[in-house]
């Protein structure tokens, strides 16, 4: 007897829809063993995670606060993935966006709220976009692998921001902490319900809608899909693939940049060390889980938000390390990739009639 894989033709739509959810459930199950090993009752822990993240106004608001940057960054990453361009650098682009927005907030001296916010938004958009655009130019012009470039540029961005907040931009009244001065009120997004929940979330939903229309309805979205499906065919059809690579990476980075803008304008009101706790990397998982669709990104980002906030509660009440949340994310991605494999293939048990 042995197990072989057989190619499946088309899997059913129901299966394709259910697969991510099943993967998450399996990941939960396996993670349960990790919890058990740590001496925690998994059922109790999961229940608490749900309660913490969804069971109260405060919990829900925190979940949405985490969801917001995830949506932005994941939209950017999934846009690039759509064209088979692997932007691994959303993290660095978030930092650059945050840096741009902060520069405007601190030094522009604009007092009008709307003008200030718009200027900060544009600065974040541009800086995030250009940061990724570097990889775009290198890839389009000299076929330099964008995975390496975007990934390595993360370190430059994060350390560059560190330089600013440890050095020239450090708040003189900040007791030597690595952070900038607080933004003026003009540079802050509106907050609601006396929580940290801010209008950036609605901007994220709006961006998701725009992205959906862009990808599914416009001629540019069509071009991106053709290039993603077969770059040679796109060239043969007269599409300017080089330009498209740059444009897509620019937009991808710009979206991640907006995430940085949301974090400084909506939440922290200053630039500080560790402004993103890895949202840019989580975005890669989300883009994959969401099958690169804009609507999917919103749903999965929310689920990830639940996981992050719930994970925080695990740290507080069970003294589990934050690494658990990362392990959990890793498990989800792992099972998701496995489910992809099973979508295209089917396992079959055959009797071992090996020889002639």
């Amino acid at each position, binding site marked *: 007897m042995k197990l072989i894989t057989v190619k499946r033709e088309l899997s059913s739509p129901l299966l394709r829809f259910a697969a991510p959810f099943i993967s998450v459930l399996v990941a939960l199950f396996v993670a349960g063993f990790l919890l058990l090993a740590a001496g925690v009752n998994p059922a109790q822990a999961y229940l608490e995670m749900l309660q913490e993240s969804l069971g109260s106004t405060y919990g829900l608001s925190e979940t949405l606060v985490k969801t917001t940057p995830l949506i932005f960054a994941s939209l950017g990453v999934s846009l690039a993935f759509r064209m088979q361009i692997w932007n691994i650098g959303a993290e660095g682009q978030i930092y650059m966006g945050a840096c741009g927005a902060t520069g405007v907030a601190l030094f522009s001296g604009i007092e009008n709220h709307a003008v200030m916010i718009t200027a900060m938004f544009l600065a974040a958009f541009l800086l995030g976009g250009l940061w990724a655009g570097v990889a775009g130019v290198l890839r389009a012009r000299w076929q330099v692998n964008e995975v390496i470039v975007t990934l390595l540029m993360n370190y430059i961005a994060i350390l560059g921001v560190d330089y600013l907040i440890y050095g020239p931009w450090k708040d003189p009244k900040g007791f030597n902490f690595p952070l900038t001065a607080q933004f003026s009120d003009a540079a802050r997004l509106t907050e609601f319900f006396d929580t940290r929940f801010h209008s950036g979330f609605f901007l994220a939903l709006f961006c998701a809608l725009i992205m959906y229309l862009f990808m599914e*309805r416009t001629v540019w979205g069509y071009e991106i899909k*053709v290039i993603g499906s077969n770059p040679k*065919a796109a060239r043969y059809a*007269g599409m300017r693939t080089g330009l498209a690579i740059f444009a897509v990476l620019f937009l991808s980075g710009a979206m991640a940049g907006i995430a940085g803008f949301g974090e400084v304008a909506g939440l922290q009101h200053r630039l500080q060390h560790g402004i993103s706790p890895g949202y840019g990397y989580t975005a890669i998982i989300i883009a994959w889980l969401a099958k690169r669709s804009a609507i999917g990104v919103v749903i999965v980002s929310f689920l990830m938000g639940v996981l992050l906030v719930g994970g925080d509660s695990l740290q507080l009440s069970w003294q589990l390390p934050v690494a658990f949340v990362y392990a959990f994310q890793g498990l989800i991605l792992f099972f998701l990739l496995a489910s992809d494999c099973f979508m295209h293939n089917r396992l079959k048990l055959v009797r071992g009639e090996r020889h002639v």
Partner: protein
Amino acid sequence: MHMTDLLQIQNIRKTFPGVVALDDVSLSIAPGEIHTLLGENGAGKSTLMNVLTGLYRPDRGELLFDGSPVHFSSPRDSLNIGIGMVHQHFMLVPAHTVFENILLALDGVANFFSRRKYKVKIQQVLDQFELDLDLDTPVWKLSIGAQQWIELIKLLVRDCRLLILDEPTAVLTPQESARLFQVLTRLRDQGKSVLFISHKMREVMEISDRVTVLKKGCSLVTLPRGEYDENRLASLMIGEDQIPMWIKPACKYEELALEIKNLSVRNDRGLADLDKFSMKLYRGQILGVAGVAGNGQKALAEVLTGLKEASSGRILAKGKDITNSTAKSSYIAGIAHIPEDRKSIGIAPDMTVDDNLIMKNFNSRAFRRWIFQDRAAIRKNATAKIDQFAIKAGPDGNPIRYLSGGNIQKVIIARELSEKPSVLVALYPTRGLDIGSAEYVHKVVIDGANQGMSTILISEDLDELLKLSDEIVVMFRGRLVGCVNPQTTTREEIGLLMSGEVQR
């Protein structure tokens, strides 16, 4: 049942989800015969080959080798009992020498320690068939024809008793094909069996001892030599008694559609793909381009359609210089392109048929409103094209990669012709297509010509060229070496031009 048969294929059935690829196929191969397998694309030839070489396991039916039942669970099993195959795509390591490639085909690491012994053995095989092949040459330096010899020698060194050849002459000149047939005949006389797959009727007539026709997954009939002729076989395959022949109206060509002057194109290795190539194409003319694959035909098509840049020379379309325009502006200038490798450059495989049909003109006013795509118009266009070109597209929203080769080619042709081009550059447009689909492509080209479209038809199928072309030019090493009239020329003449031995 004859106990003397080398291989008996009995009632083989193989299904894939939703498709019956083989349905009750039976045939037998005697020792020392050349048996040809004929059938349209999708008739099940490749599936049958894959069953014989152990890649697929049949759902039902039996294989008898030397009268005893065999079951293959991997290609190795099939090779071990003596069934070997020369694939259409060679399985060679380009950087290694001929000798090393042949060694690789043999079992066991031990071979690498007794190189001398094997070298002698391989040299014997070469001498026996009077093949001139240097064992120490790296494979990438060899012509395609020579590479095919290596594949064949691999099987002979292994003492395979049944040799399966999948369209071996597709890459050969007529002279090389003749040489191959000599060797095959000799192998047959030594008692080896050959299973030969071909689309080319003339070869089938020339070489086969028996012919089996496959149709829609069933073996229709096996005919011994003398009981078949071209008409009989073609009608069995396509199910019609009449092979349509085209009657071309005799007309004079006066209006120049395209002129190429001293065009040179360098390839990636700095060698010339096109070398001072010149030709003229008139309105409504079908110009056949003959030549062994790899003599600059692809470069010619790519430079005409803007995918490659010319290093010198000029291309004039209706007097306008379009030498170094991008694919886009060439298209506007009215040149359509049916590419050689339809799956790798002709389509976006994951996208729907609708989307693939507008790939060239997605930006035209007809398919968009401002920046948005007009899905209704795109859908309407697709319905019309699917209907007009009889494309079997499957359910709506079906990705194009699920279509058969012939239907993919129809999608490409429908798309390329949709903007009423003045010039069509067709690169091997019927390669790998079944006779029905190929006839359809021919009809499209001829209809286009009647309406004033000029066609550059690049093909390796001489019959196709002779049937369609108003004039045939022959390419050799990037140059135009001859220009012949299809009415008066002979295959031999074209063959000699193709091999570069004569120039006219």
